[in-house]
């Protein structure tokens, strides 16, 4: 009995201990609840909202690109896509088969869809095909009851009505690559496209606009339960270019068969009216994703269709450079306008002989004749006397040798050599003979077609430092206030410019001009200019003796580049043009006719071209 009561006492004591322990543990639970639900309640409330509420981005419509008269260069087209939502992956095959009875589904698409369905969550729609035509849309809509989970979705895709005619200026849009992700969630939206070249790239941010947001309630696996609120975004802004669609079309089609570049600009405003580069590409093809084969074909093409040759192609200017040499001589007092040189077809200097393009020589020529007939000997002599550094200085004033800052990507700066440049880059002293070669625009000198157009514009607009532009930038009002007429001036004397222009007039209209074959009889539409033929290969002494081979007789890639720079009208120049035909042959035979046609067209299109609109961006 005693042991029993002892046992009971022990049991009671230990039960009390256990009960106490339990109470303590229950208190711990209570305290923890207090901590979570009172002390940290706010924090967890926020986290719960973050869980529940998802921000969806509403991509803004991309701004359009217009030409100077408001015609459409880049627009957004409705893109009908057929989407499929399959709750179970094994039903995908039969669902696709059902859909294939109404629209064509390629084998590649079929495989991709099955792969994506396997990977994505069941409620995430998968794009089966894009760019459906209205017949296909109609067929699907009519048969909708037989096609569960199939929906038609209207997206936007970029469309360039002028196809390849302005491809290099406009650029193209395409899917965002890994390196382009910068934390902007808009870029991470599936199917979002950004500008990859041309205006599309330079003004991508303006064109893109800002995304709207939609607050949706989602469950744990991300399915949308309902929309809570919506905030509209800002659509991308329209951008109007200085281009004239008609002229652009004309120019691009005129050089379509060549590997060439054309730039036409307004000599007073700097507005680029046409800028074409051939061969071109269809920017619309990039939209739906280019096949590897097509891409390789573009990249491996020897005529580099993806490069905008007008701003990124660098060519020896050849004889088109002679005006610069003449101005350098005149302005530095090295030569007088009346001075003459006797050309016998060769110029002996040091231990070398420098040939004129005309084997038997031009005879006695003055400066105007030398430009008109493109006498090399005259300019060998002039260049030797001026020196390379003063030539380079004058070239720089006319926009050569440095980037012009046009609002297009990929502009290259060309090259205007100086003594210091050669010492620094090649580590060798400048040879005097190299000055002679540079004097006729060969050797180290490299220019882009855009630079040549700008040079011409500055030669004929009274020596003003006009700057090329593809859009009317908003700041232009302030800029022009800042840069008054005095600052715009290149500081070249009126007399020198007039003399050079007379030479350029004679090139086309003079009795002995190199381009007299393309002269325009109608005085109102007549033009002036300068031919250039840039030698690509070296002509050996032996070949000279046996007779220089004609361009037609050598492979395409070593033929001469044909160049022409020109302006019109003669009396009061308004338009400047530069034409470069890669490996085209002689400037007068190949480039000059192109320039003539385009100059006629630009004047025909708008004989009294209205002043450019001051506002750059239309809404």
């Amino acid at each position, binding site marked *: 009995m005693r042991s029993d009561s002892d046992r009971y006492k022990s*049991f*009671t004591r230990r039960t009390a201990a256990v009960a106490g322990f*339990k109470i303590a543990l*229950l208190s711990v639970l209570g305290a923890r609840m207090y901590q*979570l*639900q*009172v002390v940290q*309640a706010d924090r967890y*409330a926020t986290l719960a909202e973050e869980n529940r509420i998802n921000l969806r981005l509403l991509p803004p419509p991309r701004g359009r690109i217009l030409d100077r008269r408001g015609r459409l260069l880049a627009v957004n087209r409705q893109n009908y896509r057929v989407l499929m939502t399959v709750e179970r992956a094994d039903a995908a095959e039969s669902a696709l088969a059902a859909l294939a009875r109404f629209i064509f589904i390629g084998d590649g698409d079929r495989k991709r869809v099955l792969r994506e369905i396997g990977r994505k969550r069941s409620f995430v729609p998968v794009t089966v095909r894009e760019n459906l035509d209205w017949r296909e849309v109609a067929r699907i809509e009519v048969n909708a009851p037989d096609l569960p989970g199939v929906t038609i979705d209207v997206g936007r895709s970029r469309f360039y009505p002028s196809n390849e005619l302005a491809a290099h200026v406009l650029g193209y849009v395409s899917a965002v690559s890994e390196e382009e992700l910068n934390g902007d969630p808009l870029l991470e939206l599936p199917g979002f496209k950004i500008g990859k070249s041309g205006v599309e790239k330079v003004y991508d941010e303006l064109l893109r606009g800002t995304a709207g947001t939609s607050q949706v309630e989602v469950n744990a696996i991300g399915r949308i339960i309902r929309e809570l609120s919506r905030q509209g975004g800002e659509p991308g802004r329209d951008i109007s270019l200085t281009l004239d669609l008609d002229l652009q079309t004309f120019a691009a089609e005129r050089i379509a068969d060549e590997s060439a570049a054309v730039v036409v600009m307004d000599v007073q405003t700097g507005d680029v009216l046409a800028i074409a580069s051939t061969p071109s590409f269809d920017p619309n093809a990039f939209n739906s994703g280019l096949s590897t084969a097509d891409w390789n074909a573009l990249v491996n093409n020897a005529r580099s269709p993806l490069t905008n040759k007008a701003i990124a192609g660098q060519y020896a200017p050849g004889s088109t450079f002679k005006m610069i040499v003449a101005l350098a001589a005149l302005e530095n007092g090295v030569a007088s306008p009346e001075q003459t040189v006797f050309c016998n077809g060769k110029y002996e200097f040091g231990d070398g002989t420098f040939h004129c393009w005309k084997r038997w020589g031009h005879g006695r020529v003055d400066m105007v004749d030398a430009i008109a007939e493109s006498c090399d000997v005259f300019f060998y002599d002039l260049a030797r006397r001026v020196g390379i550094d003063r030539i380079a200085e004058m070239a720089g004033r006319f926009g050569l040798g440095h980037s012009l800052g046009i609002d297009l990507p990929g502009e290259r700066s060309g090259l205007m050599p100086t003594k210091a440049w050669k010492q620094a880059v090649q580590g060798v002293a400048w040879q005097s003979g190299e000055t002679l070669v540079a004097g006729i625009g060969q050797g180290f000198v490299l220019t882009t077609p855009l630079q040549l157009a700008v040079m011409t514009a500055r030669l004929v607009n009274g020596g003003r430092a006009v700057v090329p532009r593809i859009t009317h930038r908003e700041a232009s009002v302030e800029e022009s206030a800042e840069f008054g007429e005095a600052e715009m001036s290149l500081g070249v004397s009126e007399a020198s410019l007039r003399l050079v222009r007379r030479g350029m007039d004679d090139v086309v209209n003079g009795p002995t001009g190199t381009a007299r074959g393309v002269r325009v009889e109608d005085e109102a539409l007549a033009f002036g200019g300068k031919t250039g033929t840039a030698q690509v290969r070296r002509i050996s002494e032996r070949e000279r003796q046996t007779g220089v081979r004609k361009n037609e007789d050598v492979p395409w890639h070593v033929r001469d580049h044909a160049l022409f720079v020109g302006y019109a009208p003669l009396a009061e120049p308004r338009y400047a043009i530069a034409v470069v035909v890669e490996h085209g042959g002689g400037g007068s035979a190949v480039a000059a006719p192109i320039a003539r046609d385009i100059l006629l067209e630009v004047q025909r299109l708008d004989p009294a071209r209205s002043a450019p609109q001051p506002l750059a961006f239309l809404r």
Partner: protein
Amino acid sequence: MFKPMDSAESELSFFEKLWQINWVVVLLLCATASIGFAMLYSAGNGSFDPWASRQMVRFGIGLSMMLVIALVDLKFWYRYAYAIYLVALLLLAAVEFAGFGAMGAQRWINLGVIQLQPAEIMKIALVLALARYFHAANPIDLGRILYLVFPLLLVTGPTVLMVRQPDLGTALMLAAAGGVVFFLAGVRLWMFGVALTVLLAAVPVAWHFLHGYQKKRILTFLDPGSDPLGAGYHILQSKIALGSGALFGKGFLQGTQSHLNFLPEKQTDFIFTMLAEEFGLAGGLGLLVLYFFLLAYGVGISLRARCQFARLLGMGVTVTFFLYLFINIGMVMGLLPVVGVPLPMISYGGTAMLAVMIGFGLLLCVGVHRDMRIGRRGLIE
């Protein structure tokens, strides 16, 4: 010496016994179960299907079973304690061969009509067997290690089987409940010291035998932020649900975490979280208070019983009940690692509810037969 009891107590009439049942405990259980029904209704997104209705049926069955058990003579349970234990152990072993798994663990056995989780039955059976064994213990026995070998085997047998299943939560629960019964039976304190030392020494060895996911759960418990989308996800989401419930909750059927499925297993292991999200601190503490009263009645009934078997049985059941709720609530609040222990009377699940109600049936039985004595040597007639 103490003699088998006078026969008057054992001859209570049916109605007298019925009257002796502690109806407050029954009422408290009904109240708790009702909270469970409400939460399962909410978990079903405002529908009795699929959980609430079935749980109600089970509760009905459980309630009748509980009352029958309460009315059965205590001696019956004493007599068949080992037999019940043996059956439970065999079922547990059978799971090894005939069981099928759910969520990566083998826990179920199909008896044709019902699917049974033998582990839940074992929790009660173990308490019964230990209570019977220690019923006869005297102070001298309790000082002898050899005397403890048999009860230790009673505990370790099912525990090892549970670890093999693998169900670490239940294994620990069995061991803990067994330990408490040892303690209440009067086993010397120094022996617990020895056992604790041995256990601590065994931890590194045990760690070696744990499954990868078990290790991960424990590691995640120690640092929940380390893997917010993996193993820590459940606990993080549970804490978010609890915390965002704040003082008075988001309202019935309004829990965003639960209804948008951020909360895993909301009808079973994480049902407390759902309650606390929808009813806040008030709801959570309310349930704790209900549990507290149930536990208090358990302790009270046990203390009033006159024989050691009844006391140990009552306390064993109470402690098991406590372990259920403490481990579950502790787990969902991030105080304990994630182990599959249901919230008693609330979580959806047949066997667990039946086991808890069988346990309470035994507790009520102890209450009904509080004055019954059983001789230390057992039922010698």
